[in-house]
Structure formats: C-alpha cells, structure tokens
C-alpha cells in the first residue's frame, strides 16, 4: 500500500521527484501500522486488556489481595464465598457491606453449614490497612479493599486451613506467570540461538542440529515430564525445585521455535539485502545481528505470546497432579491440587476459582497473540 502511494507520487521529472520525496512524510512506520491494525481487531484488544489485568494482579498482588498467602482464619475453615450487598434489608440503597456467617451444625448429619447473620454486618471500604506486604523492598500495609472494622472478608471463601482463596489466587498469579515467562524466555533464547545459527551456517552443522531438534521433539512429553519431575530432590528448597521444574519445561520447549526460525533464516539468508551486506564486506556476526535477527522479531513475538498460555496450562496441570510447583509456593495449579478428590470438590466448589483465572489468562494471551499475528503480517495490505 505504501508502495502504491509512493509510485503514485513519483512525478515525471527528476527535479519534481525530489520535491515529492520531501512531501512523502505521511508514511507510517512499521510499528505504527502494526498498532493501527491491532487496534482495529476487537478480539485482540480484549485480549490485550485481559493480559494487562493478569499482569497487574501479578505485579501488585500484595495490594489487590486483601490478605497474605499464609494468613489463616482459624474460625473459618471451608468458609463459603461472601457476597457483597448493596441494599439494606428494607430495600434502600446502602454503602456496600458484607454479612458475617454464623456456623450451624445439622444435628442429624453433623454437617456444618454457614448461614449469613444479619446482625454481624461489616461495611466495605477501599484502601484499608491490613497484612503488610513488600514491593521493591518497600513495606506497605494498604490493600485495595477490605472491611472497615477489620473483620475477615472472604470473597471467594476459604480452604481447609482457613486461607482466603481470592488472596491466594491473586498471589498465585505471580508464580504461574513467573513460570510462564521464565520458560518462554529461556526457550526463546535457546531456540533462537540454535535456530538462527543452524539456518544461517547450514551444511553439516545444520544437519546435526536439526537431528537433535527432531530427537527432542520426538519425546513423549507427558511421561517424560512426570519421570523428570520424579527425580527432582524432594527435600530441596521450594525455589530450587521451581527452577529445576522450569528447566525441565525449557528442555522440551526450545525445539519448536528453533525449527521455525531455521526455516525463516534460510529464506532471509538469500534475501538481496543480506547479499548486499556481504558485498560491502560485512562479517557473519554483523549480518546476523543487524540483518537476520531483527527481521525474525515479529515471528518471535508472536511465538512468545502463544507460548505463554501453553506453559500456564502445563504448569497448572502438573502442579495439580502434585508434581510441579511445591508448597509453600502458591500457584493456580497447587491451589487446584487441594480439590483433587471428589469429596472436597463437593464440599467446597469455590476452591475451583483458579480455573477461572487460568481460562481468562489463556484466552487473553491467545487473543493477544492472534491479534499480534494478524497485525504483524507483512503481506496484509488492508
């Protein structure tokens, strides 16, 4: 399209041509075009908003979550979610409030049930004091919302130890997302280096590298994850296990991007601008850094946005099985691990809340990736 306009503006004489060149400033840069195309895609923009939401809850977990990860409410084991009320009992509008729950025991089944207690009323407020949390080394104790009286408020109920599900879910975003970004980033770096080198140098090196890639890709993923995780030292620090778990995922994930980039680099290698660089005497290192890698960046960005939700799903799944992230670290998967038996699912279905977060984040990252792919398509001429 730019070409079309450019040609149109080419005028008939050389003198005019230079004048035209001066006028031709309306050209949009590549990234401006990408942004415009992206903004036109509603699904992609919704995905972007979702991604920002998920990222924010990871970064500002301490502020958004009303309580700390390990903060226990011993009086509220398996406490069901409390709803926020906006109306008084007589139907008039009120400041948002919650009702405390009174514990009642069914004398026939000995089942404990929670029923709202109208006399135990607590007003809600924004920016209240609570558990302290730190951000960039600074201590804070303000939370996004809470009760003015200091009474506990469980938006999504509590688990078997009386820990607030909503708070843990927000905190869990951190570990889950950290895992996703770590695995995606490391796989991207390894895959890019291997793929670009393999495609650019070709020959025997390419042959050997690609056979290794095929070997890695031919592993049956799931049994291998389980087997590798089984050999992780049980007694090690949770952080060490976390890193080793991430390393295992990276080990099996770099191969895809390296194969894709190899193909792209083979095509780029024969582009005329690369040959032009050779003809001015540029070294391989310079050609790779200035000509080849920058031109694969859109491919990498799209791959990364698709990879993130895949890692999130995988982490959740393995942690749900109990072989991934280990307590006391909190991820969405480890939270789901608490509802792995049918009884606890029937007794406390609200423990499934992280599933909603997983769905939201996977959909959001996928939608964002889709939008980016369409927006960055160099052949789109609309």
């Amino acid at each position, binding site marked *: *399209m*730019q*070409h*079309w*306009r*450019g*040609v*149109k*503006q*080419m005028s*008939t004489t*050389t003198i005019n*041509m*230079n004048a035209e*060149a*001066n006028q*031709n400033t309306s*050209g*949009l*840069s*590549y990234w401006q*075009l990408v942004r*415009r*195309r992206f903004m*036109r895609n509603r699904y992609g923009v919704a995905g972007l908003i979702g991604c920002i939401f998920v990222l924010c809850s990871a970064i500002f977990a301490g502020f958004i979550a009303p309580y700390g990860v390990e903060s226990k409410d011993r009086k509220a084991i398996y406490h069901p979610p409390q709803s926020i009320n906006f109306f008084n009992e007589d139907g008039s509008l009120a400041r948002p409030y919650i009702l405390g729950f009174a514990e009642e025991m069914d004398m026939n089944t000995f089942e404990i049930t929670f029923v709202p207690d109208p006399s135990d009323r607590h007003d809600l407020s924004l920016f209240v004091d609570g558990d302290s949390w730190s951000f960039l080394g600074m201590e804070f104790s303000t939370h996004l919302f809470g009760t003015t009286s200091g009474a506990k408020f469980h938006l999504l109920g509590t688990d078997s130890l009386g820990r607030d599900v909503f708070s843990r879910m927000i905190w869990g975003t951190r570990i889950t997302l950290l895992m996703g970004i770590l695995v995606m980033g490391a796989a991207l770096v390894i895959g890019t280096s291997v793929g670009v080198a393999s495609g650019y140098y070709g020959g025997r090196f390419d042959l050997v590298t690609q056979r290794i890639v095929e070997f890695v890709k031919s592993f049956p993923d799931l049994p291998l994850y389980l087997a590798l995780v089984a050999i992780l030292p049980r007694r090690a620090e949770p952080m060490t296990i976390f890193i080793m778990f991430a390393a295992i995922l990276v080990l099996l994930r770099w191969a895809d991007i390296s194969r894709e980039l190899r193909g792209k680099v083979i095509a780029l290698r024969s*582009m*005329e*601008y690369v*040959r*032009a*660089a*050779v*003809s*001015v*005497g*540029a*070294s391989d290192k*310079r050609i790779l850094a*200035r*000509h080849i890698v*920058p*031109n694969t*960046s859109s491919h990498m960005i799209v791959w990364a946005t698709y990879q993130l939700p895949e890692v999130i799903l995988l982490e959740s799944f393995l942690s749900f099985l109990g072989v991934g992230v280990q307590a006391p670290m909190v991820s969405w998967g480890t939270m789901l691990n608490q509802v792995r038996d049918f009884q606890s699912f029937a007794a406390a279905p609200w423990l499934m809340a992280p599933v909603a977060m997983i769905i939201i984040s996977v959909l959001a990252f996928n939608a964002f990736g889709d939008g980016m792919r369409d927006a960055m398509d160099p052949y789109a*001429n*609309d």
Partner: protein
Amino acid sequence: MTEPLLKVENVVVDFRTVAGTVNAVRGVSYEVARGETLAVVGESGSGKSVTARAIMSMLAENAIVGAESRITFDGKDISTFSELEMQRLRGNQISMIFQEPLTSLNPIYRVGDQVAEIILTHRPMSKKAAMAEVLKLFEEVRLPNPEARLSQYPHEMSGGQRQRVMIAMALANKPDLLIADEPTTALDVTVQAEILGLLKELQRSHNMAVILITHDLTVVEKTSDKVVVMRYGEVVERGLTDVVFANPQHPYTQHLLASEPKGKPDALDPSAPVVMSSDKLRKVYNTQYGGFFSRKNYELVAVDDISATLHKGETLGIVGESGSGKTTLAMSLVRLQEVTSGAIYFDGDRIDQLDRAAMRPYRTRIQVVFQDPFSSLNPRMIVRQILEEGLIVNGIGKTAAEREALIKQALADVQMPADAMQRFPHEFSGGQRQRIAIARALVLQPEFILLDEPTSALDLSIQAQIIDLLRELRRKHDLSYLFISHDLKVIRALCHNVIVMQHGQVVEEGPTEQVLSSPTNEYTQRLVDAAFNVVA
C-alpha cells in the same frame, strides 16, 4: 458503428486500509466492441487491473465499488448481478488470463482435467466429450504434442506452455470478452512475442472483444486497435492506437511515450586499461535425482567456460533469457558465488581463490546493485544505517560526522534529499529505493559496479530516469559497469559492448550497435525481433 459489447461507465473503486481510504479508481469509463482489442496502459498503481477486476467482480474484500458505477455487458447491467449470476458469466462469456502462469494453474491436477472442469462447470456434457474439446483447444493454442499434454502436470511444462494452457482455459467456453491482465510480463521476450501473436490470431478467428492490460508500449502499439491511458485511477487519454501514438495530447501520454529507453552510451576511450576479466569461467551445479537406490548425478553447467573483459569506463551488457546463466556469471565475477573452475582478475590481481577475509580490501572497489529494490534494502534499518554499514565495516570515516558527510554526498549523487536518511525504505517508491540502493554502492567509492537488472522491477518512466542517472554517474566517477538485463532496449541505451548468453554459453558478443543491428546468430536474431518488433 456497432453497439459495444462491454461498456464501463464511471467506475469508482476505493480500498479501506489502516492508513485511510485509497481511491484506486476514480470514475473510469471505456467500452469495447466485438472483434476489437482495447489496450489499457498505465504504470503500477494506475488502477488498470483494479478496473478489470471490478468488471469480473473479483475485487478484494476491503474494496468499495462506487454507487454510480455501471458495467453493461451485452446489453445487461452486470454491476447489479448477484455472485451466483456472476459465476455463470465468469469463465463462460467473460474470461480472464492472469499475469503469473506459474501460479495460476493448480499444481496437483493434470492440466487436461483443469481445462475440462471449466467446460463441465458451464456446459453439461460427458467427461469424454469435454476431454475431446480440450484436445481441440490445445491444438488451437498450438501446444506441441497436445495428446500427451492432457495428462501432464503444470510443473512439467515451461512458462510459455503454461500460459498457452491458461489461454486454452480462457477460450474453453468461447467467451465474448477476454480480459488479459499483463499476459506476457512474466515470460521471456521470445515467448512473449509468440503468445501475443497467438492471442491476436485467436481473437480474429473467434471474433472476441479483448481488453489487454499492459505497461509495455511496444505491445500496445503492435497489437491493439484502441488505447486507454490511465494514471492515478483516471483515464487521461483515449483514442485509436495509431492516432494516440502519432499525436499524443495529454502531457502524461507524451511523457510515457518519451520514456522509452533511448540515447547512446558515451564514446569509449580505446586505450583504457582492463578492470575486470575472466578466463574460462565455469560453474557447474550438481543435482541428484532418481530413487534411493538408483540415484543419478546430473551436472547442470550454468556458466560454460566464459571469458570476458571489461575496460575502465566501459559498460558491458550481458543479455539472455531466464536460465541463461547471466546472473550466475555476474555473481561469480563479484565473488558472491563460488566458481567451479577458471580465473577472475580484478585490476590485475587474481581474486577467484581469495576467501572472505582476503576479499575484503576488494569489496569497497567492487559493488553490486540488485534487481529488486524491495528486497535489497533491509526493512528494519533507516536509510542512514543502510548506507553507513559499508563505511563502518570497512573503517571508512573515523567519526559519525565524517560518515554522515559521505552519506549526504552519495545521496546527492543519486538526487535524493539528505533528509531521506532518517526514513525507512518502505516510505519510498520503487524508483527512489533503487536510487538508495545505488547510493549504497556509491558511498564506498567503487571502481566497478555490477548492475543486476536494476530497472526491470520499475515502471517505464522511472526506468528512463535510472538509466539517465547511471549514465551521469559513470561520467562523473569514471565507473565501469557490468549490466545484466533481458531488455535489449535498455542495453542499447547504456552498453558499449554486449554479450548474448544462452544455456550458459556465449552465443554472440561484440559492440552493442553491431550486435543489435546485424545479429549473426539465429538466437540473437530472435531476441532482437522480439524486443523491437514484438509480433512477427
């Protein structure tokens, strides 16, 4: 005069794009009668193909056709036709031939079946009867050995043969109107002449109306009855071809007609020293074919013992059709490709054995301008970075300011403004990009530049400007050029001497004037005929 078969009235087509609406066609009207050839001429972006696609209602999804547009075919207003009605019309009464014969046939079906499908879609008959018709069509378009062709796949045929199949397909249902969109642009010149001759003949025998879309003025002059000249989506001039060519009214038409490459190269100093030469240069590609156990080696000789000499200040042309080995030869000479045997000398030094590091001192002296200005500039770098690369790599210009001065000088040499430095290549048109590519070569102050079809991706009027520029730069910097082209007109305007290549061998060489005016070789003869006379 008879009632026109097709009447295009006030067609307006806009395209919605991210950067705003583009008015591709702004009120175009023309008409064509049975037995008549209408040529639509214009440079890329003039809206000539878009108008044709609007007739077929085959526009892209983001196109908006204006409400006032009316297309009348055979007395019916087809601009209001539904998609279903158009389907009955397309390939039946109106058919179209596209530019790319390499991609417009489906590679996984036999060509006979592909043509038969068109017949069966529009006329119910048995498969056998349809195949018999296809055979007749293949004979009509003069495909050699037509029976055997029926069961061939597209990849088994040459470009010219594929275009003949496309023509057979277009003629399958005896259309009243044939739209040919640059039908010969992708073909070699000698094949081009044959295809155009065939089209002309078929038009006469079928009494069809033909709309020929092209940018090639020689083709227009030799084949059409009427001509419409388009620019910026508007018709600037129309009339009988002879009249328009003899006496163009609109300044744009005059300019277009004047931009045929012309002029002569400057006289050559006969005592000039040799800059570059090759001695029995040979490049062989080894390919393997056959099954796993019956693997055979096949040696393709791309360049067959070629010796060439280029003097200082000389422009040497290498001419040949695709596959003749001209690009392989040139790329070998500048050491962008390894050779199998033979020697290359540059300024007295033998350079064919040098490795990449040893070649580096020569790189600034030997430069290359590539064919396609759209792929020869890195889209992620601004013009300044593109031009600066050679300077940085070769350590020319100690400071950024010094390098900037050199870049400004090179841009001035190619008549580009200095503020182009801060912009990305995609902000420029094809001609401007080719100027930038030439500036990239010039900034290193080379003695020799290889020009690999530098004008073939450009429009005619821009082509003329680039030729003028190259001539001027040669004079100013005392450059020697090796100029590769398939276009004899450009060669005639620019080259002192010419080498004609076919199948990797030199079939004729000598001073350009002599070779072009009295070719001794039969192949050269055909090339010259095709380039300057088009239809025999």
